């Protein structure tokens, strides 16, 4: 049974690349969101196994969306994508409970490893 993934990033190009990499490895992309609000809504609607969440997004940023999702589902699995220089945001996200984070520009291998490990515990 394929792992169901929700992609959240305001750049459609990023989502496209992630989709390609992940689908090739057998993951199923069940939904895409282009801002934090949408990410939370889609999470509730689709109930994915894991979320790949970009930190900088309009309407509601990735950190807030992360917190919101955790308050709805403490067992959610979220992996954050961030750019260099957003260290304190990442730390906050870790405090909120994310499984891992990737730094952009991301290497496919890292995304895949992070995903694989996210299902360990």
């Amino acid at each position, binding site marked *: 049974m394929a792992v169901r993934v929700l992609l959240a990033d305001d750049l459609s190009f990023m989502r496209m690349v992630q989709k390609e990499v992940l689908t090739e490895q057998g993951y199923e992309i069940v939904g895409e969101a282009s801002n934090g609000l949408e990410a939370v809504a889609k999470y509730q609607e689709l109930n994915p196994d894991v979320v790949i969440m970009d930190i900088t997004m309009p309407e509601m940023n990735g950190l807030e969306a992360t917190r919101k999702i955790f308050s709805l589902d403490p067992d959610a699995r979220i992996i954050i994508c961030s750019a260099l220089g957003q260290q304190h945001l*990442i730390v906050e996200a870790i405090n909120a409970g994310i499984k*891992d984070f990737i730094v952009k520009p991301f290497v496919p291998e*890292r995304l895949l490893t992070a995903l694989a490990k996210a299902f*360990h515990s």
Partner: protein
Amino acid sequence: MPTAGIDDKRLLSAFLEEAEELLEKLNQALLKLERDRTREDLVHEIFRIIHSLKSEAALLEFKGLSELAHRLEDVLEEIRNQRLPLTRTLMDVIFTASDAIQEMVRRISHGEKDTDVEVSSIIAELDTQLPGMGESPGSQVRVELFPAEVHFDNLEIVQLQEARDRGETLYRLTLDIDEHAAMKYPRAYLVFNKLEQLVNMVKTQPGMVEPIEEDAFYTQVRFYFTSEDDEGEIIKACDIDQVSSRRLEKLEYGEYLETELPETSVSTAEREGPERAPAGSWQEKSYIRVETSKLNDIWRSLGDLVICKARVRRLFESQQTDRAPLRSELEAVSDSLEKITREMQQAMVETRMVSVAALFKKFPRLVRDLSRKLGKKVALLIHGKETEIDRSIIEVLSDPLTHIIRNALDHGIETPAERLKQGKEEQGQLVLSAQQQGGRIVLDISDDGRGLDIEKIRAKADLEQSVSDEEVIKLIFSPGFSTKERVSDLSGRGVGLDVVATRIRNELKGEVLVTSVPGRGTRITILLPLTLTIVHALVIRCREFYFAIPMQDMDETVSIPLEKQEGIEISVDGESLPLLRLENLLGLDGREEPRSERSGIILNLQAGRCCLLVDELIEEEDVVIKPIDELLNPKRLFSGAAVRGDGGILFILHSARILEAGEGTGK
């Protein structure tokens, strides 16, 4: 070169002949390999060639050549074993190295030295191509970046003692973060965050909470923690991408718990040995980490202070017949001195500020353990870890906060079943937050539990309905108040909320507030003043009273032999000083047993010097000065009072007035 002679010449020419042949083959192989980097057979061949060159060069003691060949051989070995991919860059490096080898051989053939060829950058290149240590299993031992010795501060030592009493094991976990990881600190933080939920974290190197170091410092991280959990869980927590290796070791408490904590209650310090003891020799050394910017502020102020003082000196020294200009200049300088000293004091206070993270770090585990024990589901949210408070406050707050949190879990938050019945989420929330607001620190502990049972408290206290709810709630801080019939060991340990309130009010000059909504939750707020007027003082005893003398007013303490104790003057270091008796100045009765030696304190003030006789020297202490009513200070000899940890009160001597008073009475 080994022994000189014909043999050597023959060896050398043989070497050179063979070397040329090898180098020719090497070149061919490299060119072919460049075109097709998957040709393993070529890699093998090149390896053999370099190996031969190395051996022969070593034999003839051509150090430069053998060294370079050796490094190249290492790299080729890795490629050969499939541990290092042959990228184009690597190919280039190999080419460059081979070129250098050729150059070296050429020089040798011309009678020059191989070591003349500069190859340090090539060697460095080769080294970077070698895979990082620890990535491959069974590789060599990782270099330890931290000294084996670690220093635990007072709070950490208390944690260790408590953990030892609970029967937990002390561990040290060393993690290596992938050198190429883009953000090492957050990667380490991922592990740290997970671990905090599982174990009792004691110390981390480098620090995991503000202030943090530069990212590069986090290539190797050490966690010291105690746990009774199985190690499997701990190892699992470390299973994060880009953590290249981990090492979990068990440590002995005995190594770190040798030193006793300094006593906070009044204790006697026996003085033996030399007649004179310079002030400050009792102090047990303790260290704090200070942000350099804070120290810079102090240095700058100190610099200004020195200049000001110099100006004052010059003014006094200069001969001014006209008084007025002198006086106004003095006034201006005096004002400056005043302002600078105030700024310095503020800066000094700030160096004592430490983030509350040190205080909060044990709570995630505490909540997890307790909630498990009680069969409740509780999430602990912490906000404002980086808020700073005075160091001394941290130690005093530890117990009270622990007690409040235990209370919230025990009495406040309901069982999952109960919560569901009330339409709440199964998981209760406990929020612990710290922030600076106005001139105060505000600590909040709030839960979304069942709230205080106001009627029950009212009934227990036998109060009428006319007493307001707020008044009733305040009673939970009175002694003897527990609305649970059973004394649960969780909130027990002899610490009640009344002790919490007392500690916060007396020791910290703070306030505790409670608000509660039945069915919705309880919030306890602790308000603490931000700035404290702290003075480093020497505690002394005179008759049955204890006093504090600011260290800055003192030079040293001396021992006065019996025969010299009665006079009105005493000679110290060839200087004749007035000898004052504190009991006389204060008008105290009672006789002390005459002793062969009595302690005298040399006061060194602007207005003069004197020697003050006291009954006993106790210890050095940082005291918080509180103002006192004039009724308590009829002779104006006190500058305030300080409340000690055990509730006792010290009067702080106003040294200048003591000196004045002594001169007045001549005794």
